[in-house]
């Protein structure tokens, strides 16, 4: 369920250059902007804090010496006066306010200072001893020098405030053990400035990324639109719309692309026109030849017939001549008919007239017509059509011719063995297989049989009067239907020719209801030694 949109997105990604370019540009510019922005922000932050810390350190140093002076000049006889001095100092220092801004102050008693008369520490508003980090205190105690650190304190109003805390030791005379003076400078002003800078930068970055993405989109669109248009036009050209052209605007590279595209289309159109003209001339020629050759042939045919009818009145040699004339005229006639038929295919002039037809009826007619030949050859032709009807939209004249050809071939090469004509159908296709058990086909011959004027054995006498074009025509006929004509064969195991036809025109064939290898084959001869030769000639309307 989740996958489908994913796939769609991936497909979109693969299809669209524009999407890829825009995404890549946006991602890359985003990376650059983030890096630059971070650097910039760090510089600003460092600059801001440096100034603040320097001012704070100076102020703390001044405060520290003021405190030390106050203690040094205090009345040393009364320890209790320290308490007062200490509080005064804290108040004074806290409220002083220098160039580093407002601050809090704490004067804390060191841990070693334990004498009873030593005053307790004091701090200004909000600053409790706990907010001075222990680490800072320890380092003040050990170094006895000014030490500072960043930190944060929580306000009573809630929220944390970043601060810089500076500590230095203070010695109260007569009291054993040091005190520590801490200044806490809140950094909220700086924080605010930084936040403002950060927000501004983020906004600028976002704007920049969008701008760059938009620019990339616009620029790629300028390139991609004509490319897409070219693709669309090319598709229309391929579909036969030879008049389609691209719009040429301006003189840039894309205009050049469009112009050369159009030149290509024009040249293609011209060549196609030429071919069409040639084909028309060819068709015309075929038609004329057909008429011109056929009329004298008819006359010769009739004259020969009259002679043939009257042959018993002639002496034997003339009688034989009349017979030879007759049979050779038959051959000449069928050769001429086949030649004209095949040149009609070559000229693309063959038209298909389909009509729903029960192929079983065609098979029955063909077998009945072939019966005399089968009897002469001692073959029995059996029709295996268990179900039916085997309806398909076909040109019955052509399919009958195909089937007649296959059946006659099977009888002639079947060596008197039984011949099966098998029919089968599924919801998309109807198949007819003609199986003989004769000489079969040698390896490589499965494809050759469909070649024009091909003979299995050139040395063999041409006993049968076939023109050598029968299977080529059959292939063209099946082709025209968008069907398959395939041959299987193996030496001395016979052969099988299978016609597969789509039930309705325009349906792409996917499989045949009859396997190409005969059903009885694997049972009769187990495939133990070597593999049976198999060669498929796939024919479909798409490859012409």
């Amino acid at each position, binding site marked *: 369920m989740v996958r489908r949109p994913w796939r769609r997105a991936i497909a979109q990604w693969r299809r669209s250059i524009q999407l890829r370019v825009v995404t890549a540009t946006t991602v890359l510019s985003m990376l650059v902007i983030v890096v630059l922005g971070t650097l910039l922000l760090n510089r600003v932050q460092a600059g801001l804090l440096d100034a603040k810390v320097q001012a704070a350190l100076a102020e703390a140093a001044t405060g520290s010496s003021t405190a030390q002076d106050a203690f040094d000049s205090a009345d040393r006889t009364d320890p209790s006066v320290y308490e007062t001095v200490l509080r005064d100092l804290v108040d004074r220092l806290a409220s002083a306010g220098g160039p580093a801004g407002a601050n809090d102050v704490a004067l804390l008693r060191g841990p070693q200072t334990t004498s009873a008369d030593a005053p307790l520490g004091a701090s200004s508003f909000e600053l409790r001893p706990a907010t001075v980090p222990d680490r800072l205190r320890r380092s003040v105690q050990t170094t006895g020098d000014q030490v500072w650190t960043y930190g944060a304190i929580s306000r009573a109003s809630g929220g944390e405030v970043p601060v810089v805390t500076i500590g230095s030791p203070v010695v109260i005379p007569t009291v054993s053990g040091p005190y520590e003076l801490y200044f806490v400078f809140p950094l909220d002003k700086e924080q605010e400035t930084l936040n403002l800078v950060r927000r501004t930068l983020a906004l600028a970055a976002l704007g920049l990324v969008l701008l760059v993405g938009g620019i990339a989109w616009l620029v790629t669109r300028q390139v991609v639109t004509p490319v897409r248009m070219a693709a669309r036009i090319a598709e229309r050209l391929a579909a036969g719309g030879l008049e389609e052209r691209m719009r040429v605007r301006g003189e840039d590279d894309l205009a050049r692309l469009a112009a050369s595209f159009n030149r290509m289309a024009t040249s293609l159109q011209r060549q196609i026109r030429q071919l069409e003209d040639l084909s028309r001339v060819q068709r015309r020629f075929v*038609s004329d030849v*057909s*008429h011109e050759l*056929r*009329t*004298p*042939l*008819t*006359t010769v*045919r*009739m*004259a020969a*017939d*009259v002679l043939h009818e009257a042959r018993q009145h002639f002496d034997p040699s003339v009688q034989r001549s009349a017979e030879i004339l007759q049979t050779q005229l038959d051959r000449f*006639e069928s050769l*001429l008919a086949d030649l004209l038929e095949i040149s*009609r295919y070559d000229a693309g*002039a063959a*038209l298909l*007239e389909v*009509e*729903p*037809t*029960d192929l079983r*009826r065609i098979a029955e*007619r063909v077998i009945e*017509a072939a019966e005399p030949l089968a009897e002469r050859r001692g073959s029995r032709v059996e029709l295996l059509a268990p179900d039916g*009807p085997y*309806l398909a939209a076909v040109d*019955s*004249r052509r399919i*009958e011719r195909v089937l007649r050809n296959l059946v006659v071939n099977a009888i002639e090469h079947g060596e008197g063995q039984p011949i099966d004509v098998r029919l089968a159908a599924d919801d998309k296709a109807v198949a007819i297989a003609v199986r003989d058990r004769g000489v079969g086909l040698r390896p490589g011959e499965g494809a050759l049989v469909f070649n024009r004027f091909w003979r299995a054995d050139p040395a063999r006498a041409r006993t049968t009067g076939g023109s050598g074009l029968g299977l080529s025509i059959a292939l063209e006929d099946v082709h025209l239907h968008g069907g398959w004509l395939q041959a299987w064969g193996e030496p001395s195991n016979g052969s099988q020719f299978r016609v597969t036809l789509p039930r309705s025109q325009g349906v792409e064939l996917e499989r045949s209801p009859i396997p190409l290898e005969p059903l009885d084959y694997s049972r009769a001869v187990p495939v133990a030694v070597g593999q049976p030769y198999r060669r498929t000639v796939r024919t479909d309307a798409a490859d012409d």
Partner: protein
Amino acid sequence: MDDMRGRVLIVDDDTALAEMLGIVLRSEGYEPFLCSDGDSALAAFHEHKPDLVLLDLMLPGIDGIDVCRQIRAESGVPIVMLTAKTDTIDVVVGLESGADDYVVKPFKPKELVARIRARLRRTEEPTQEMLEIGDLVIDVAGHSVKRDGHPIQLTPLEFDLLVALARKPWQVFTREVLLEHVWGYRHAADTRLVNVHVQRLRSKVERDPESPDVVVTVRGVGYKAGPA
């Protein structure tokens, strides 16, 4: 055998073929008349009053198609076309112009004679038989078809086709069966013959040839007579 089986007008520009046709037909007992161009074909037709016309489709002057139309316009005499072309368009145009049958060159003389014989053989002895198909009344003996008392002109072939269908209104005729019954082909021939003649018949007998109710198509099988 009678002295003459019938008069045949041969319209063909190829004199050798025409002469040979004459020889063959004469030997079969027909009386041939020759005519070598389309312009004089109609005059020859009027002069000789043939029982059948053998017509070449390609003729100098007026071509075979037009000659066929001219003859058909005034007579139902059987016309057999001689054609060198088997392309559907040529055959169908010839049949639509009124030819009853066609023979493709090169043909065997026997084949041609069989075609001529089939066209000239009149359907049996007239029997007193009235048939009804759709709202048509067919008088088989009187060779007439009437709708509401108005006669409809049909050629003998169209009449035979209609009678064949009307005699067995319950039966669906395949094209092959019709070819055998009406045209006399014993082996399967060109079913376009049937298609074209059914169209021609419909254009004459149907009230609306687009949705026929006299000669009904049974898809994938053939034709049958519409309900009476």
